[in-house]
């Protein structure tokens, strides 16, 4: 295999990886503010894409109106999830909350299937499918756009978590009881993180919907997104971005080399191997906070 091809695989791996990061940032947001891995992020992403489609295609709004409007709708929806489903579980064991998020995911899949059916629809952002040559390397424009959105969100949220509101959210993730004791509204904080994660879901939903079409399989992004988030450390936004890049490269380059031998399908194997090895060897990921145990 020649060097140009290797470079092309790597560059496209980076871009694809950043799209995984785009998804994973939503997971990290909720984990950072409530210490719960949100298993419904896939469902939220798919719902976000469907809402954009409903506003843009079914109601005929232009995209520049439909996308921000969808973000607002999903923000309110995310806050609503906390109010209706999670508030009564605050302070309960994490396992219960985890099961609730799984339930929400199944609910979202069922609802979108009932309303919009199973056929794949396209978003059509108006991004050209003409290949773009950077030097000798071929890249996809939509991947480039998605990567840029991921980096933008990364910067925004890193800054956000340094603000007073962001600090309060991190405090909530550390200790619910102590947060209540100093008057921090745990409920509102968790609700806000769900709202923000739902906005991230809209952006991931549009980009991925443009790439592979909007249908039920969009919710399966959770598996790759979760792998990225776990490798990055679940509560580190920087970790999610770096892990996305690393995974993207491993997946793209690795599968190109392995596929001829196993006859395809090695992408998922690589992902699974990374997830299992991370949990076994480095459960807190690359940049995750560790449990502090003083001796």
């Amino acid at each position, binding site marked *: 295999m020649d060097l140009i091809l290797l470079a092309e695989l790597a560059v496209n791996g980076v871009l694809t990886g950043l799209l995984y990061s785009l998804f994973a940032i939503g997971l990290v947001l909720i984990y950072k503010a409530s210490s719960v891995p949100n298993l419904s992020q896939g469902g939220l992403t798919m719902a976000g894409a469907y809402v954009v489609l409903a506003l843009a295609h079914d109601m005929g709004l232009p995209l520049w109106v439909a996308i921000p409007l969808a973000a607002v709708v999903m923000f309110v929806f995310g806050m609503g999830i906390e109010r209706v489903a999670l508030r009564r579980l605050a302070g309960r064991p994490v396992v219960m909350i985890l099961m609730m998020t799984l339930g929400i995911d199944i609910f979202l899949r069922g609802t979108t299937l009932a309303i919009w059916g199973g056929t794949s629809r396209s978003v059509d952002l108006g991004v050209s499918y003409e290949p773009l040559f950077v030097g000798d390397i071929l890249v996809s424009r939509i991947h480039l756009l998605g990567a840029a959105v991921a980096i933008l969100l990364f910067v925004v949220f890193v800054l956000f978590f340094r603000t*007073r509101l962001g600090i309060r959210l991190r405090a909530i993730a550390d200790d619910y009881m102590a947060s209540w004791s100093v008057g921090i509204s745990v409920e509102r904080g968790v609700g806000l993180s769900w709202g923000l994660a739902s906005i991230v879901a809209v952006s991931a939903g549009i980009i991925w919907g443009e790439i592979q079409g909007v249908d039920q399989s969009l919710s399966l992004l959770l598996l790759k997104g979760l792998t990225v988030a776990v490798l990055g450390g679940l509560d580190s936004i920087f970790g999610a971005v770096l892990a996305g890049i690393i995974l993207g490269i491993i997946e793209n380059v690795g599968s190109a080399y392995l596929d001829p031998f196993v006859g395809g399908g090695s992408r998922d194997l690589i992902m699974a191997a990374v997830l299992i090895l991370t949990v076994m060897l480095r459960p807190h990921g690359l940049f995750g906070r560790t449990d502090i145990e003083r001796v």
Partner: protein
Amino acid sequence: MTPALEKEAASILSMNSIEVLYDNVMLAIKGVSIQVPRGGMVALLGSNGAGKSTTLKAISGLLKVERGRISRGEISFDGSVITGLPAQQRVEMGICHVIEGRRVFEHLTPDENLEAAAPVSMNRATLKAEKQRIYEYFPRLAERKNSQAGYLSGGEQQMLAIGRALMTQPRLLMLDEPSLGLAPFLVTEIFGIIRRINKEQGLSVLLVEQNALAALEIVSDGYLIENGRVVMHDTAQALKSNSDIQEFYLGGGSATNFHEIKHYSRRKRWLS
């Protein structure tokens, strides 16, 4: 005005025959009445499981989180009834509860710990001044304000927990076992600072302690709780010289060996 009512008017906190149920079945405290005078310092003494922490949680509203509820009685703070209010609202009114076990926000720096506890409405300049005030009380915290709070020593974490509570601008500070697991010199240091804040700022303090000896040094009066009931209420001076208190909590008894102590404590129980 009857003497009892007069006393109530002078109190910042008054708790009348409070009963607390956990999970709707377990009666944790059975009719506890406590008064904290404005600007005063009061200790709540008693052994493990006597109901001291439950009493504090009933006052701060943190009971609800642990599926407990007040089934009888009334708590009033600064003249208004707070029995049913949510915890957040009580903090805004000026009640802050430093919960047991130095629960600082471990992954935040001490500086961020203080900021997290500041009221949302506090402006930037006040926030800075308030943090400065806390660092003046606890100079050790200032030295380590940018390291991770989880790695502070036990004494520093307790100081941070108290400093964090002070950021909420309380008028009543409730401390649950601040001396737990700390070296005696640190207990003296921390209690000294609490006393100083009480004097300088007029902050009222309700102190729960198993370390009765240290607590009675700084408070004006104390309540003794056993089995969810107040069994004794007196001035700190009187409590210190009470022979039963000495026997059980101050370790000044006449027993010469462990067997004798056990025998004694079996024989002598406050009847409830």
